[in-house]
């Protein structure tokens, strides 16, 4: 796993929320939301799940991971 892309900003703005409001909804600081939107912070599953619920967007749409590992054919 090399990195990830976070589309939180787009969906937050579509929902009409500010960073501050979203941060309060999911129980983190605004700085954490800011770093998340810049894909500089890899959130826990719990936070990712809370964010996904807050902006009504599936978790796999919000976060996209760039995998370098070969995919198994299972």
């Amino acid at each position, binding site marked *: 796993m090399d990195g990830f892309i976070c589309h939180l900003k787009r969906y937050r703005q579509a929902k009409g929320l500010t*960073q501050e409001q979203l941060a309060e909804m999911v*129980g983190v*600081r605004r*700085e*954490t939301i*800011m*770093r998340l939107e810049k894909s500089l912070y890899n959130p826990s599953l719990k936070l990712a799940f809370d964010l996904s619920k807050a902006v009504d967007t599936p978790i796999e749409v919000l976060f996209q991971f760039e995998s370098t590992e070969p995919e198994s054919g299972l």
Partner: protein
Amino acid sequence: MKHASKYTRKISPRLGLLGLLGFLGFAGLATYRLSQGFFPFVFFGFFGFFGFYYEGKMSATLMDERFLQNKLRAERKAYSLCGGISLLALMLTSVAEAVWVQLAGALALQISEVKLMFLTIMLALTFALGSFLSQYLLYHYDCEDCSESEL
């Protein structure tokens, strides 16, 4: 969605001035001459109070998961550095005997006294470094891009 919020304790950055008490450690030089006691060298540990400055700057901050991660990262780095310095100080006291003999001769003291003094000072300073660095690094990691704002 309600979360049990936890905030850092509320203290003033001015408490960092307590770090100046660390200079009391130099009293050890005087007390040693007067009564052969070097207990005041442990006061060098008070230099660690300078960390209150950074703790005060982050006072009443919500401790979210990123904060806790940064805290662990800062403490790991600070304490591993302090552990390394302590180990180095211990190794230095057990090797390089020739250096200790020369140093004891120059200070007109016994080797064991010089070693004990060195260890006391090193441990106090290491404690101070650990206390300060853990707070400083936490502030540094947490505020990497505090100045930027984007709503």
